[in-house]
């Protein structure tokens, strides 16, 4: 059973357009991270959100954690070709004294110049 579903799975847009990627779960997470991965490389951490309703901005990227800490969204304003990549959300839950991290299904973004 996949705990973290991302949508859309694929997204191809023109440079300058806005987009939103969603990360949804039926489980509550104590933290939620977003990563971006370029082909042939490992994922790179973009942001961590920990409080329900929290909003963080990183230049043209806006991240939101749902009030119930079950979902998150990533909004990109005026997308650029450099934003192309695989976006992964990852939810953390405390279990038995350790934090267990589950990665989402991924959203592959292509920004066309």
């Amino acid at each position, binding site marked *: 059973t996949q705990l973290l579903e991302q949508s859309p799975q694929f997204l191809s847009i023109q440079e300058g357009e806005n987009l939103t990627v969603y990360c949804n779960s039926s489980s509550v997470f104590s933290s939620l991270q977003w990563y971006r991965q370029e082909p042939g490389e490992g994922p*790179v951490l973009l942001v961590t959100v920990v409080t329900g309703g929290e909003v963080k901005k990183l230049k043209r990227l806006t991240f939101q954690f749902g009030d119930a800490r079950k979902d998150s969204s990533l909004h990109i304003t005026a997308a650029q070709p450099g934003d192309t990549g695989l976006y992964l959300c990852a939810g953390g839950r*405390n279990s038995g004294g350790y*934090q267990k991290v589950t990665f989402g299904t991924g959203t592959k973004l292509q920004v066309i110049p």
Partner: protein
Amino acid sequence: EADIYQTPRYLVIGTGKKITLECSQTMGHDKMYWYQQDPGMELHLIHYSYGVNSTEKGDLSSESTVSRIRTEHFPLTLESARPSHTSQYLCASSESIGLAGLLSYNEQFFGPGTRLTVL
């Protein structure tokens, strides 16, 4: 910038060979992980370690084995490679960041990956 390294970056081998994928980190992180990922797809956790001499199997069953003799080193071994093992293997390490009370969260730092092809 994270200091986590994987070697080799690319490996093409024949069926039945024994291989070891190396992963090292210089950040002193206790927790380390191995993920398997097909191109552009989700990550599947195959092994993790919470410290020296601690190893656990992940969510995805794997024929590989790992060891953690030193904090900075977490190698993954396949005794007899098969074409079904062809994939990208990603190593990561993390530190716990404390929140109020007993809560904490991990931020994982990934290596560049090893692209394994078994013929």
